[in-house]
């Protein structure tokens, strides 16, 4: 059986806002962005963190931002003046883990969460076997952040 995904964009924003408020409030709140990540980002490379959800509904939650934004997030979470690539990868992985885990809790019970994966990639488009269901464009510290929820075709 495949469950239909029944979320509201506001659900995703609230989940993400909870994460940001807990760990990244130093640079101010998350806000809805009037423009897309592509329009706002000064770079064609992004840090993309993803975590898979398996169960009656199977898919992926991704968190995307420019490398400089990811570095700011890592520095803020770790309370460090400077961070290395490994710190950025770990911090972004934990952020998407918290967002994905809380989105999972809005789905029917019995789903499991995978381990996060973090990559640097060109501006991302859907793969052949994925369908983008939700997209939330936000800004934080004056820079764009995007959350997307994808389902895996069966």
């Amino acid at each position, binding site marked *: 059986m495949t469950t239909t995904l029944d979320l509201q964009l506001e659900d995703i924003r609230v989940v993400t806002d909870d994460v940001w408020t*807990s*760990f990244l409030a130093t640079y101010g709140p998350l806000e809805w962005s009037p423009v897309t990540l592509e329009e706002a980002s000064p770079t064609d490379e992004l840090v993309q963190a993803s975590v898979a959800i398996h169960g009656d509904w199977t898919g992926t939650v991704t968190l995307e931002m420019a490398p400089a934004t990811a570095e700011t997030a890592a520095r803020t*979470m*770790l*309370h460090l003046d400077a961070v290395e690539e490994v*710190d950025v990868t770990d911090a972004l*992985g*934990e952020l998407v883990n918290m967002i994905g*885990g809380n989105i*999972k809790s809005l789905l029917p019970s019995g789903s499991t969460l995978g381990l996060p994966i973090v990559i640097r990639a060109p501006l991302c488009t859907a793969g052949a076997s994925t369908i983008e269901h939700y997209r939330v464009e936000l800004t934080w510290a004056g820079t764009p952040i995007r959350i997307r929820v994808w389902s895996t075709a069966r």
Partner: protein
Amino acid sequence: MRALVIDDSRTMRSLLSRQLVALGYETLQAGNGQEALEVMDQAGADVPVLATVDWNMPVMDGLTFVQRVRTRQEWRSMSLMMVTTEAEYDQIVRALAAGAHEYLIKPFTPEAFSDKLQLLGLLPERAAQ
């Protein structure tokens, strides 16, 4: 007092350790349940009073770690607090039934973490005031 912070995320280990150190704890860290069991074996009789335990980790997950700890008489005194994104009621019940004493859902505020320590009787007196 010593606490063991178990999480595959170095960022989360750092966040929790920083708060525990500020409360006067000495902290140990492990990246998964198996590593944590090894750290505790090495600790010998000096068992940490608290372990914070993530659920989803490679090699050995947090639930398995809790189950293993509860089979060891010499570790019975240690309080186990799950700190995880697993927020479903069934998961919470499973963890508590396996032997976890408290359950904190990520994301959490420093105040929420301190509240859980207080419930366990592990918040140093000066911090509780």
